[in-house]
């Protein structure tokens, strides 16, 4: 191959590489320009009413920093800008689109500049998406930290309240009933002597009064003890729920271990029990004992079930009425376990179903928590599949989650 032919070959390779290259003289007049540079820059030249012969004229509009850097550069050759990002706007079809470019600028010699452009619009979009996801995760993490702190404080307060109740219970035992009993006994024993002093009928009445006071005091004490015991039971229930919640907030709990779906569903229900009772929802569970555990992230699966139960409650609220049912069922099949959550809430139609798994989709006035999209991604990391079904609006909904069982070899 002749030198000329080799040059032509190299030029045609440079012409085609997917990076914009422009060589200019010291005044910015374009000497050489490859295809990609024209593809990137022509729309900008035209938009600014420029013929495309001088690159500096364009950069003054779209990236003045490059001109400043170039004018301030004193060496006769070297790198002036290294992969500097800038954004241009493409105006076409009545709308404006952002295009993100990076520019590397080199002085090749006193009379020669080389501009290297690349389009990073797609990359920037992906970065932005990633950033959004990270931000959401940080917010979630922050929420967790706050909740964890609040739970800890409530836990301490509840423990304090519990020991206070115990103290009150003990105090009620040291009451006046014993003293009144002793007084009644004293009057009884000395009834005659007292009768002589104040008359027998009065002495008899005094004995009755003392005994009546004692009995009343004993009744009150018994009543108070019962109330305190009831309160202590409530406190202990609160402690149990707090313990369940805390267990799921442990930072190191995102590890895979063998978990019981039955346990997770029961825990999730326990956390929502007050809400369900308040709404008079009839809860039916078919959670057979002895199902094989599945390998998974306890905390995340708990979040999924809590979220699904909450969704059901909210959809029942939307539906209205006060005769609602929530049915939770676990069923073992040959190589999987299927969990179903069925509610008598508002349900959905086909159009809504298509949108439901999109990130950020909500029919609620205030979006809460994980969302179906989040649930699905957690489940997909467990190789589980989630599906939603509803006979239509106003007819309730069923969520089905299918977990594969670990295969035994």
């Amino acid at each position: 191959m002749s030198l000329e032919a080799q040059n032509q070959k190299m030029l045609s390779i440079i012409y085609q590489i997917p990076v914009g290259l422009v060589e200019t003289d010291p005044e910015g007049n374009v000497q050489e320009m490859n295809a990609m540079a024209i593809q990137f820059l022509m729309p900008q030249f035209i938009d600014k009413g420029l013929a495309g012969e001088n690159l500096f004229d364009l950069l003054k509009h779209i990236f003045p920093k490059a001109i400043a850097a170039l004018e301030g550069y004193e060496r006769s050759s070297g790198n002036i800008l290294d992969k500097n990002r800038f954004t241009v706007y493409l105006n076409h079809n009545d709308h404006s689109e952002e295009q993100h470019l990076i520019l590397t600028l080199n002085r090749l010699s006193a009379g020669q500049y080389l501009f290297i452009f690349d389009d990073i619009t797609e990359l920037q979009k992906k970065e932005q998406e990633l950033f959004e996801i990270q931000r959401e995760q940080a917010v979630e993490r922050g929420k967790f930290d706050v909740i964890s702190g609040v739970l800890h404080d409530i836990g301490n307060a509840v423990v304090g309240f519990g020991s206070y109740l115990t103290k009150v219970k003990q105090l009620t035992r040291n009451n006046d009933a014993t003293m009144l009993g002793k007084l009644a006994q004293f009057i009884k024993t000395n009834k005659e002597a007292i009768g002589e002093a104040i008359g027998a009928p009065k002495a008899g009445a005094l004995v009755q009064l003392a005994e009546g006071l004692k009995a009343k005091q004993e009744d009150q004490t018994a009543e108070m003890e019962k109330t305190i015991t009831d309160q202590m039971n409530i406190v202990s229930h609160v402690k149990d729920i707090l313990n369940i919640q805390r267990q799921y907030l442990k930072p190191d709990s995102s590890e895979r271990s063998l978990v019981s779906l039955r346990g997770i569903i029961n825990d999730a229900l326990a956390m929502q029990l007050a809400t369900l009772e308040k709404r008079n929802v009839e809860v039916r569970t078919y959670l057979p004992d002895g199902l094989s555990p599945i390998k998974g992230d306890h905390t995340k699966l708990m979040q999924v079930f809590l979220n699904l139960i909450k969704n059901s409650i909210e959809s029942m609220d939307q539906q209205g009425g006060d005769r609602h049912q929530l049915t939770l069922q676990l069923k073992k099949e040959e190589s999987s376990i299927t969990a179903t959550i069925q509610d008598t809430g508002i349900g959905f139609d086909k159009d809504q179903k298509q949108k439901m798994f999109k990130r950020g989709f909500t029919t609620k006035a205030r979006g809460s928590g994980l969302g179906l999209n989040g649930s699905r991604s957690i489940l997909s990391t467990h190789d589980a599949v989630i599906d939603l079904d509803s006979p239509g609006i106003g007819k309730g909904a069923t969520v089905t989650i299918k977990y594969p069982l670990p295969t035994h070899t």
Partner: protein
Amino acid sequence: MHNYESPNLHQWLDAQSDSELDQLPYGVVKMDHQGFIQAYNDKESTYTGVAPENAVGKHLFTEIALCTNNFMVAGKLDQPEVDVVVDYIFTYVMKPTPVRLRLLKSDSPNMYMVVAKK
């Protein structure tokens, strides 16, 4: 006489043979609706340095004139009917050359990029 500005240039170009296209004083790239080149006339070849035999059968926007593969040129031909004039710059390999392009597309199976040097 037909020239670059004629209103019914598309119909007229459809009626020309490849050798008749070679006689024209402006560049003509004839392609199908996907952008695969069917004819690349002599004038166009002198503008770009690409020999017609190296261009025919290739895809204009991704193989021959990569510099036109944006919304200003290639993007316009996504529309079902096109007759627009675009001021643009071509590079003969690396030398920038200002040109005026007329893009033609209709229900005819051929579409055209007509090129006049400014």
